[in-house]
């Protein structure tokens, strides 16, 4: 196989998200009708269907919900990236997010609820364990 299988395909609506990420900012969406947040971003509020949803900067703080250290993936460039930590995290603002946890020496360092902070790799939001934080 050739090419890369890790590149997101931004669209007219999500370009804002990826442009912010390229500048080192993580955005979420908040509904001004019901007040709830969501991620992945949608044009409208998936909770109440209001169209009054807006972009909002996230704090970048999250806790680790679960993870798996991936050893096999034959799609490039993941083949060369293994082992890596696929993870699902709970953002401080509420929404859950699919991501990768980077900078871990081994999975043994991770635990549920570990405090994480956003980092950026080539314009892609990933997370790392907050140094010295409990559960890290």
């Amino acid at each position: 196989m050739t090419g890369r299988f890790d590149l997101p395909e931004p669209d007219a609506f999500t370009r804002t998200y990826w442009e912010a990420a390229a500048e080192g900012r993580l955005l979420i969406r908040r509904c001004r009708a019901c007040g709830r947040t969501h991620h992945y971003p949608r044009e409208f509020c998936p909770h109440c269907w209001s169209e009054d949803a807006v972009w909002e900067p996230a704090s970048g703080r999250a806790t680790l919900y679960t993870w798996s250290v991936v050893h096999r993936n034959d799609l490039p460039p993941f083949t060369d990236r293994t082992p890596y930590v696929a993870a699902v995290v709970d953002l401080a603002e509420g929404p859950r997010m699919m991501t990768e946890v980077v900078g871990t020496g081994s999975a043994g360092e991770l635990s549920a609820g570990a405090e994480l902070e956003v980092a950026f790799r080539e314009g892609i939001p990933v997370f790392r364990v907050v140094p010295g934080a409990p559960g890290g």
Partner: protein
Amino acid sequence: MVARRKVAVVGVALSDCGRVDDATPYALHAQAARRALADSGLDRSLVDGFASAGLGTLAPVEVAEYLGLRPTWVDSTSVGGATWEVMAAHAADAIAAGHARVVLLAYGSTARADVRAGRRTGTLSFGTRGPLQFEVPYGHTLIAKYAMAARRHMIEYGTTIEQLAEVAVQARANAALNPEAMFRTPVTVDEVLVGPMIADPFTKLHCCVRSDGGAAVLLAAEEYVRDCRTSPVWVLGSGEHVSHAAMSEWPDFTVSPAAVSGRLAFERAGVRPDEMDFAEIYDAFTYMTLVTLEDLGFCGKGEGGAFAEKGRLRVEGGELPVNTDGGGLSAQHPGMRGLFLLVEAVRQLRGEGGERQVRRRGDGSLPRLGVASGTGGWFCSSGTVVLGV
């Protein structure tokens, strides 16, 4: 109110399975379909409904055409591995309502041969547009998604990797009794644990086999049952539910959508989980069996690990034989395995299990009630069907 007709499964079959390097998926659909029709003894002209998914741009039109069928009722529900339980439910409803008399469900895939021949990658790419753009950078393989769910169950309930391995060990023990199973050599918990790591905590034997193969099921209205050479297996109740597509939209990784589809199916059938003589549960990974046992109500939430111990899932001496053919973990898994669950459940209820035939505890008679619960995607969808004789 028009009285609803009863609906029975009257024909089941598998195509050649396991390693099939010289057949197209179309040929496997057709082989399974012809065998299922022959099994039923019905005339082909009676088949007026056709359902299939996974092959063709206009599914199920291409496969219907390949089979020479011109159906007046079709379905191509495509919700992953659970497709077939959902489709069987839709077919049963259509037959009950008088919109079809005999419906054929057919499936075939050469997933194993395709990877070997380089026609596809081992890891599937599902695309990069829309919601997928928020997933694709992170390499969440299908196996990793299930592994993350299993880890959450381990975190919340203390489920151990040994308990999960027990599921694979018992599936293999059942497969040892099934001449059609791809892998039949018994394995131990230790052998599961020391295998190559795929996505932790899953080593290789926590994951299903990748095989070729097809299956077909024929459902008919009650008035055609007497024309069949088989004894009818009645569709008593069914339920379906879809949850999420993005893992981040799944509220609780320890609860499968089978919690909803199972409850609906048992309620509609008017039976309880503890009345089941066996269960066929979609097992692409060991965790699926464990959590689905909980969510179907065979044990409490969080108790799946303990339930899977002590050989409970074995055909030989098990309290609740599960995946009596060896399941996706050992028998065959060509991609969307749900139809194989229905085939095996029907064979068990007809008493055609051979060496792996389930006997009721106590009097040793043939089973009367069984459940097939399919799961699709990565706990995205679920369909549960209760069958009885």
